[in-house]
């Protein structure tokens, strides 16, 4: 079976505008959540979020690109540039036809939609800019990545709410493993921190008004973030042949559907996804040392996720570490799995387990080692990254430390 490795990583998120800065923040347990700075925030009841700050689009893109790039596409392009730079991969000739991009996003160009609905409904304008459709479409990021890096093979967007990135990266992994492709850019991006985006989420009554405290007994909801994560996946032998630095190996992936409720999580569906990823990787349960949790900080998710981990791992559940880095970078919705994959890379490569910050009080229903508040040094061979979406769509990725 062909093996699949990661040779490049890039990100922009509330913690930092690059991978090293993000690792540093994760190690320090720094929280990127703060007061939202968006138009009409006074009319929102949720006023906090993990916003990307100090970001000047004109420093990264020319005028024509800005005309066509929604904020979620801008984030995607910045992360993809970093990932391609790190990988050193040149995509041309036959490789171009065997390389693609599978990309996750939930809201796509939601900010563009919000701004232009405002223009025509609130401001009564009768005309919008001609490129609103290509700017707001959910495949805009995937398409611009394909154009920028000459990816002429399978390319598309996956939109499965909070699992979008994991589904995207899992499919990219499967495409290389199965021989359809040799290299893929993959990950996800999200930018929903606009008035309409937050207003819609407020309605569900699942958002915290003060902090994201996954697994803590006093947790009171999720906090949204924004940003992107992009990775270069390659077939192992090809990566070795060109002397690429290998960041980690993807060894397994599983997807399940709860087929039960449009918002409530299912222990059984989550458990089948984690067990499936371990089975797909062909490893023993005891090899899993770290799980980057879905860990949204809602009462229902964290309780259900911990029960699923206990069910799958049995006595080993007490030995492994599980943390929710959403406590720091927020919930990036369709981009969250991509930024969370970085937490797994850091655990595998650097032996540093990122913490669950904001943890204040133990919850008997989340009685696992959630790495509270402070990062921990530990050698980990295998990590899982969980994503359990609204709509009951679950996607779990298994990664292994690469030691040559």
């Amino acid at each position, binding site marked *: 079976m062909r093996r699949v490795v990661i040779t490049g990583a890039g990100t922009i998120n509330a913690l930092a505008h690059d991978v090293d800065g993000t690792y540093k923040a994760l190690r320090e347990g720094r929280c990127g959540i703060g007061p939202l700075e968006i138009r009409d925030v006074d009319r929102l009841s949720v006023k906090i979020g993990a916003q990307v700050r100090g970001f000047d689009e004109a420093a990264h893109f020319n005028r024509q690109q800005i*005309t066509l790039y929604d904020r979620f596409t801008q984030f995607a392009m910045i992360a993809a540039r970093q990932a391609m730079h790190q990988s050193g991969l040149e995509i041309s000739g036959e490789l171009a036809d065997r390389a693609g991009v599978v990309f996750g996003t939930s809201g796509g160009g939601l900010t563009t939609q919000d701004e232009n609905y405002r223009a025509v409904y609130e401001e009564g304008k009768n*005309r919008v*800019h*001609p*490129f609103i459709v290509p700017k707001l479409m959910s495949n805009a990021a995937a398409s611009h990545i394909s154009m920028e890096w000459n990816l002429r093979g399978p390319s598309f967007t996956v939109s499965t709410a909070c699992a979008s990135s994991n589904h995207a990266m899992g499919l990219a992994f499967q495409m290389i493993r199965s021989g359809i492709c040799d290299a893929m850019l993959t990950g996800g991006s999200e930018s929903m921190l606009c008035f309409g985006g937050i207003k819609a989420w407020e309605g569900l009554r699942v958002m915290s008004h003060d902090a994201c405290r996954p697994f803590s007994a006093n947790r009171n909801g999720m906090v949204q973030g924004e940003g992107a994560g992009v990775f270069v996946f390659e077939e192992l032998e090809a990566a070795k042949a060109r002397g690429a630095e290998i960041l980690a190996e993807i060894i397994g992936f599983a997807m399940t559907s709860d087929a039960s409720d449009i918002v409530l999580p299912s222990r059984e569906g989550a458990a089948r996804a984690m067990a499936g990823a371990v089975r797909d990787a062909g490893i023993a349960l005891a090899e899993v040392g770290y799980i980057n949790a879905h860990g949204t900080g809602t009462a229902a998710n964290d309780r259900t996720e911990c029960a699923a981990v206990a069910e799958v791992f049995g006595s080993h559940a007490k030995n492994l570490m599980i943390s929710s880095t959403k406590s720091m970078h927020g919930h990036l919705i369709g981009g969250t799995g991509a930024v969370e994959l970085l937490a797994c890379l850091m655990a595998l490569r650097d032996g540093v387990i990122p913490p669950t910050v904001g943890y204040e009080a133990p919850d008997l229903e989340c009685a696992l080692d959630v790495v509270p508040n402070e990062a921990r040094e530990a050698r980990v061979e295998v990590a899982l990254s969980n994503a359990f979406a609204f709509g009951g769509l679950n996607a779990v990725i298994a990664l292994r430390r690469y030691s040559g």
Partner: protein
Amino acid sequence: MDAGAKVIEIIAEQAVIDPSDINLDHSLEDLGIDSLGLVESIFAIEEAFDIAVPFNANEPSAGEFDFSSVAAIIAAVEGLVRDKA
């Protein structure tokens, strides 16, 4: 600013050149403005003059608006502005 100068300014911005480099007999093609650039120029003209320019990208030559040269565009814009008054 008269209509001609404003139209030239809009076209120059699309072509990413200085307005003084634009001649009245230039076509948009001469200036390197492609179909997307044309649509953006029309949008900018509509915004600047508060007019509606008849144009369908499926049949670019079907409308009565003459895009064949900078001079033709200026004349057509002046006509639409006059009609509005």
